[in-house]
């Protein structure tokens, strides 16, 4: 049938179209919902837009904060950031940025402070629905010096005072008209209604074609002021099924699978075994922190000895070895080992079933029932419900191994999974999980976990389920540390605070740390210049350095 159809269409010999050597086709699994850089936080959008624009500041591949759209990173030391006392007597800061010389929108209009003011207007408006509302709330006002220089007056002086990574400048000359009714801005923004308008972009590339749900085509932006990119055209194709993504790579339909939104680690490892010699495969541990949130209101989990026994009964090294070929580092806390704030003094819980057993005995779980599970004096079995996203193959595999390891310690684990829609929409965010919820956090380098650990951030119906402290963890010392870290500017002093926080986190165990996820980057040998970052900023921020070195 296929031969007939192919023959009938006169295709037998032509096969897949050969690509121009200056065209790169990237495959990834997600389509960006919106292309507006400030509305909704979505990795697929960040990935594509990083080729078309630059943030004022971002983290480089060595995890240092650098300027992209600004001339010089403002600091207290270079005088571009100045402490100021606010009307309420609190300490604020004025931070001055100068827009990069030559920064021009794709239609030839210069990027100016008018755009900065418009972006601020959109960001601070409560109905516009920007992703990082906190940044705009922190900005008290913006002072404009000239067309390129402006000063942000921030309501407090925090250690990351000069990081405005999510302040994504918008083109006032195009989008202001769409902001007349702020409530309707999400629907009217030119990024979605007129996505191929060159005036929306100022990066190395601009979007020239958008097929909803299927592909986005980018071409060189003639007004880009930086290094001229090698590829004339980049096509981002969306193929959600990773098996199909792999087949497309092998067929030549795509050249490269984006590590940020491509194969899962186990698929990458299997791919390496089969096709490793044909591709340059890089496994980069990322800031995606896989963990299990514990519901500390569960009567059994209230006891710290039980929580400690749970982690001691796990052989996470063995788990990482069996499932991930040791490419995913085991986590001691929420801090990645590559982050400068990582403390080696943080307690490490190596597999120690004997100590786990002693702790459980001491906590009143010494007896065993007929099936070998631990029971307390009242005859109640030590049972926990472990939940995660249904259909997430890797997580479900991890779950099964955890279940079997805990079973050896006499702990009964009941697995109950839900579709992501329900799991994240209700169960986790409204703290409906009975005992354990496995999922991941994506953070930035030196990210303060206020939302997940501060007692004021416990999600409740009363606060409309805002905050992200799903474990209901309360520790006054942790609260104080979080407050102190945010405003401590001295790095050595801050390192001490971070070390203490990690120690308390590992001691109290509101969360069972599992590992940091690693992303496989499947790169053809001829494609050079891709440097995985390991943090939230995608590789495409350096797309102008990508090149083909074909034989």
């Amino acid at each position, binding site marked *: 049938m296929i031969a007939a159809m192919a023959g009938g269409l006169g295709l037998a010999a032509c096969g897949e179209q050969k690509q121009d050597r200056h065209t790169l086709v990237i495959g990834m699994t997600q389509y960006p919902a919106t292309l507006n850089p400030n509305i909704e936080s979505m990795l697929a959008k960040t990935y594509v837009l990083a080729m078309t624009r630059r943030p004022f500041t971002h983290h480089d591949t060595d995890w240092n904060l650098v300027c992209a759209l600004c001339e010089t990173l403002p600091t207290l030391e270079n005088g571009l950031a100045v402490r100021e006392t606010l009307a309420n007597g609190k300490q604020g800061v004025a931070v001055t940025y100068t827009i990069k010389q030559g920064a021009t929108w794709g239609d030839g209009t210069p990027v100016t402070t008018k755009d900065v003011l418009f972006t601020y207007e959109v960001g601070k408006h409560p109905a516009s629905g920007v992703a990082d509302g906190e940044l705009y709330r922190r900005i008290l006002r913006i002072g404009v010096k000239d067309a390129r220089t402006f000063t942000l007056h921030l309501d407090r002086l925090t250690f990351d005072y000069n990081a405005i990574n999510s302040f994504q400048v918008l083109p006032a000359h195009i989008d202001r008209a769409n902001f007349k009714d702020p409530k309707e801005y999400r629907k009217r923004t030119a990024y979605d209604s007129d996505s191929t308008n060159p005036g929306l972009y100022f990066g190395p590339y601009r979007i020239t074609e958008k097929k909803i749900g299927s592909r986005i085509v980018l071409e060189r932006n003639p007004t880009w002021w930086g290094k001229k990119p090698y590829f004339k055209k980049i096509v981002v194709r969306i193929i959600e099924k990773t098996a199909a993504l792999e087949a497309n790579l092998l067929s030549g339909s795509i050249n490269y699978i984006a590590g940020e939104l491509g194969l899962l680690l186990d698929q990458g490892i299997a791919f390496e075994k089969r096709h490793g010699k044909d591709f340059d495969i890089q496994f980069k541990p990322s800031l995606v922190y896989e963990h299990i949130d514990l519901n500390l209101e569960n009567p059994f989990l209230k006891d710290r000895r039980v929580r400690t026994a749970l982690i001691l009964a796990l052989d996470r090294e063995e788990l990482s070895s069996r499932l991930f070929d040791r490419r995913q580092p085991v986590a001691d806390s929420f801090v990645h080992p590559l982050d400068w704030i990582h403390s080696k003094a943080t307690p490490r819980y190596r597999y120690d079933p004997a100590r786990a057993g002693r702790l459980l005995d001491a906590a009143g779980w010494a007896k065993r029932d007929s099936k070998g599970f631990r029971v307390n004096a009242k005859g109640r079995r030590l049972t926990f419900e472990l939940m995660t996203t249904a259909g997430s193959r890797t997580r479900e595999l991890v779950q099964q191994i955890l279940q079997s390891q805990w079973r050896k310690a006499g702990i009964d684990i009941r697995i109950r999974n839900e579709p992501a*829609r329900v799991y994240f929409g209700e169960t986790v965010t409204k703290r409906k999980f009975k005992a354990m919820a496995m999922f991941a956090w994506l953070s930035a380098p030196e990210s303060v976990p206020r939302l997940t650990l501060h007692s004021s951030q416990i999600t409740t119906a009363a606060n409309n389920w*805002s905050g992200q402290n799903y474990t209901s963890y309360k520790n006054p010392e942790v609260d104080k540390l979080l407050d102190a870290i945010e405003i401590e500017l001295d790095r050595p002093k801050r390192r001490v605070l971070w070390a203490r926080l990690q120690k308390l986190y590992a001691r109290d165990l509101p969360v069972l740390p599992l590992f940091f996820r690693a992303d496989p980057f499947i790169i053809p040998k001829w494609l050079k210049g891709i440097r995985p970052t390991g943090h939230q900023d995608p590789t495409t921020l350096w797309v102008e350095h990508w090149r083909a070195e074909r034989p």
Partner: protein
Amino acid sequence: MTRYVMGRLVESVIVLVIMSFVIYALIGLMPGDPIDLMIKSDPRLTPADAARLRAVYGLDKPLAERYLHWAMAALSGDFGHSRLYVQPVLDVMPGFLLNTFNLMGLTFVISIVIAVPVGVYAALRQHSAGDYAINLACFAGISVPIFWLALMLIIVFAVLIPVLPASGVSSVGGGGFLDRARHLVLPVVTLTIFSIGSYTRFMRASTIEVMRQDYIRTAFAKGASRNRVVVRHALRNALLPVVTIIALSFGTLFSGALITETMFAYPGMGKLIYDSIMGNDFNMALVALLFATLVTLLANLAADLAYAWLDPRISYSGGGGTPR
């Protein structure tokens, strides 16, 4: 007949209105609303902010009131905005609908064109080697996991023998008839292999049943040739149950084939509905599901009319539908 058709159309409109409310209410039951998503993006939003935003977006009103507001807007042609694609629903849907129509329509036509004669052939040679071979092929087609079949076809015809594109609707810069046709081959073949088995089995069973009827024996006794009996007497009656199956398939024809569309990165209605539901895109999910309902209702009406054409004993022109 006209009265019957008009009656059925009115019935369909009523069903559609009821279904619109039911779907609206069910979608409203799903966890999360646009404000919940905003809170997820910015967990520092205060309860007061959330309450104010709910009021701004009209989400603080009772379900019935919100439905009426939506229905009134829909009557004036405004079916709302897609949250996922940030465009009016009616601007997004046609592209997906056209893709699905091409994919499913072609699959449907090819499946019927092959399944009807093959089913009749198998029925007329019941228990022969040919019948067994057809049955085996049918069961293989029905039982093979569509995900696996799609992957195998991609590996064979796009990787090992690279004669066809592995995925997508068209090439970048392409989009002509031939280009689109090439991209359709593998998904159409996947779906055809999957659907042809059941159509063939229905056709075979139905033909066997009809061939046992008295009027067929009478036709043979009158000296009619085998071909004439099959074509003139058996086929029309044997098609009746198949028409029912086809009519029921029409709903799915426009609601797409999720797995196949996902495997071939083919943006069709199946993916659109799935993504809309999973992505809290209420307006899109609502309109797409309503559209599938409308198509099913119309297809069933068409099937009822086809019955009358195929079987003269069926009449809708009065007399309570008593066979003559």
